[in-house]
Structures are given as C-alpha cells and as structure tokens.
C-alpha cells in the first residue's frame, strides 16, 4: 500500500515538474516564465517537505523556511524591471 502510494507521489511530482518546465521554456512573455518558475520553486518546497515526512526527520525545515522567505523576490524583481510593453506573439 505505502509502496504504491509512494510511487504515485513520485510520478505526480515528476509530471508536474515536467509540465511546469514546458511552460518555462515555451511561455510567450517573461511574466509567464516568472509565474511558472514560482510554481517550480513551490514544487521544490513540496518535494523537500515530502522527503522529510516520508523519512521521518526534520532536517530540511530551515531550507523550507529560507525558500519561503526569499523565493518571492525572484518574481517581484522580474515583474518590476520587465519592459513596459514587451512583444508577445500568440
């Protein structure tokens, strides 16, 4: 039971990361890429937390805290310095 659940969890996280990477590569404007990389960062947080919960330790909590604190500055600085009207096709 738990082996099956763990396999499903790994598969779902992997598919989610791949789909987010596709949006990062294809995304027409830089804001799409900023949003998608935010999602990818959240997925990294979720994977770190899932590893902690599955293996039953709490060593990654400082990493999670730092990512939650400073991860926001990436998309904020991208959105702040993006060109006022960049050319978006499609």
């Amino acid at each position, binding site marked *: 039971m738990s082996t099956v659940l763990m396999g499903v*969890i790994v598969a*779902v*996280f992997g598919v*989610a*990361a791949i*789909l987010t990477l596709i949006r990062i590569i294809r995304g027409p404007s830089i804001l799409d890429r900023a949003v998608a990389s935010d999602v990818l960062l959240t997925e990294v947080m*979720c994977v770190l937390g*899932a590893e902690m*919960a599955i293996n039953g330790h709490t060593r990654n909590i400082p990493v999670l805290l730092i990512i939650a604190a400073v991860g926001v500055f990436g998309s904020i600085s991208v959105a702040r310095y993006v060109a*006022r009207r960049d050319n978006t096709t499609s």
Partner: protein
Amino acid sequence: MNVFGLVIPDAAIDIAVLVLILLGAVLCLSAAVGLLHFRDVPSRLHAATKPQVLGVMLICLAIALAQRSVGGFLLGLALVAPIVLMQFATAPLSAHIVGRQAYRNGTSEERRLVVDELAESKQTPPAAG
C-alpha cells in the same frame, strides 16, 4: 500514537501522511496543468497560487503528523508554522505585482474582461514600477 486513550497504529499514520503528501502533489500537478491550459498571465496566476498556500499547508501537516506521537506532532506544528505563515505573507505579494505588471503590459486579454476597474489609470507614472 495515543490520543486521549485512543491508540492509533503507526501503519495508519503512515498511510495518512502519504495521503496528505499525495494531495499536495496533486495540487502541484493541477497548477502545472493550469499553467499549460490557460491563455493569459492572470489566469495562469490563478492556477499557480493554489499549491503555494494549500499544497504547502498539506505537506507541512504531513511533516508534523510523521513524528508519530502527540508531543512530536505539536512540536512539528510549531516548527512548520513559520513556513506556512511566510507563504501566507509572500504568495499574495508576488501574485499582486506580477498581475499588475501583466495588466500594464497588455498581456491580459482585455476583450474578455467583464469589469475593467483599472481602465482610467492606464497611464502609469514613470516611477511606479
């Protein structure tokens, strides 16, 4: 785990932890599918902010539950509470700034808007980001 005399076996706790993690993973997957499916930046933001709060909350609950004792659960809750509070504080911040910039960029599809309350403030001052 012994909750007020009610003994919960460790196997049930393990299954509960894995189910919570699976729910968080499904939220991440839904955000990724939404990123691919929606067509403009505000709709993609709508999909992207789901796992940033609820997914992280579920994973943090799983971390606390994986300690397998009542004291460990409470200690785990105290450890993960700053992470969830930080996400609560910062997720709307980045979503707000990205959405505002997307509107000023013309990236949002303005034909499909029902109400456009920012229409008269289209001319942004130069220093307004």
